[in-house]
């Protein structure tokens, strides 16, 4: 079964850091992400991962009555927002839950696991 692991986290702690500090923060966080990706790769070597740019540059597009409306995003006005996601072929939900808990944002944030249907 293919699952998407939606990574919800509160970016307020780092999104406004100056570039050098942001980079330092990333460098510190990276080993944990690499280890999570290592676990995912063991289960599905073909897994994919996407990291999204900060929400300040998100746009939301709607078309109503043939007219295109673009607003500044993100879509959901929640404290935690999607910062990225993984998609992996996993044997069952239990294994997906195990992998979800390995993703660093499970601590402090939330990992929503959704079956991929197409």
């Amino acid at each position, binding site marked *: 079964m*293919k699952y*998407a692991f*939606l990574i*919800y986290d509160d970016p307020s702690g780092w999104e406004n850091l100056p570039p050098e500090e942001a*980079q*330092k923060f*990333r*460098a510190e966080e*990276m080993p944990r992400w690499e280890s999570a990706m290592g676990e995912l790769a063991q289960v599905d070597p073909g897994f*994919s991962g*996407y*990291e*999204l*740019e900060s*929400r300040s*540059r*998100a*746009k*939301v*597009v*709607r*078309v*109503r009555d043939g007219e*295109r409306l*673009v607003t500044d*995003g*993100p*879509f*959901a006005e*929640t404290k*935690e927002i*999607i910062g*990225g996601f993984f*998609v992996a072929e996993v044997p069952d*939900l239990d294994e*997906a*839950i195990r992998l*979800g*808990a390995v993703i660093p944002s*499970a*601590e*402090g*944030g*939330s*990992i*929503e*696991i*959704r*079956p*991929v*249907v*197409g």
Partner: protein
Amino acid sequence: MKYMALIYGNRDRFEQLSPEEREAMYDRYRKFGEEATRAGVAVGGAELGPTRDATTVRIRDGETLVTDGPYAEIKEALGGFYLLECPSLEDALDWAAKIPGAHHGAVEVRALHVEDEGSEAA
């Protein structure tokens, strides 16, 4: 430049559609997918199952908490995505507006993170 188009829509509304209406909706998605793939714009994508099949995992104080259901119960939930390869945000917005979900729900367009060229981890 790669952009993620996150498609938010009302699943209940979708499930209330008649089989013909649903097929027509899938048909619009197929047409969009074909057009965007032919143009070299759609380079990935997936449709997610309904949020009632979601499971959410959190770790708090070292304890793993697993709950049934999505991260947040919102009327319009993330239902799928396309990964778009476009020269600019403006182009990505043009393509996003062609996604059927933009016509009844909303499409959030986010740039994919790329490491700065030549930057090295400290």
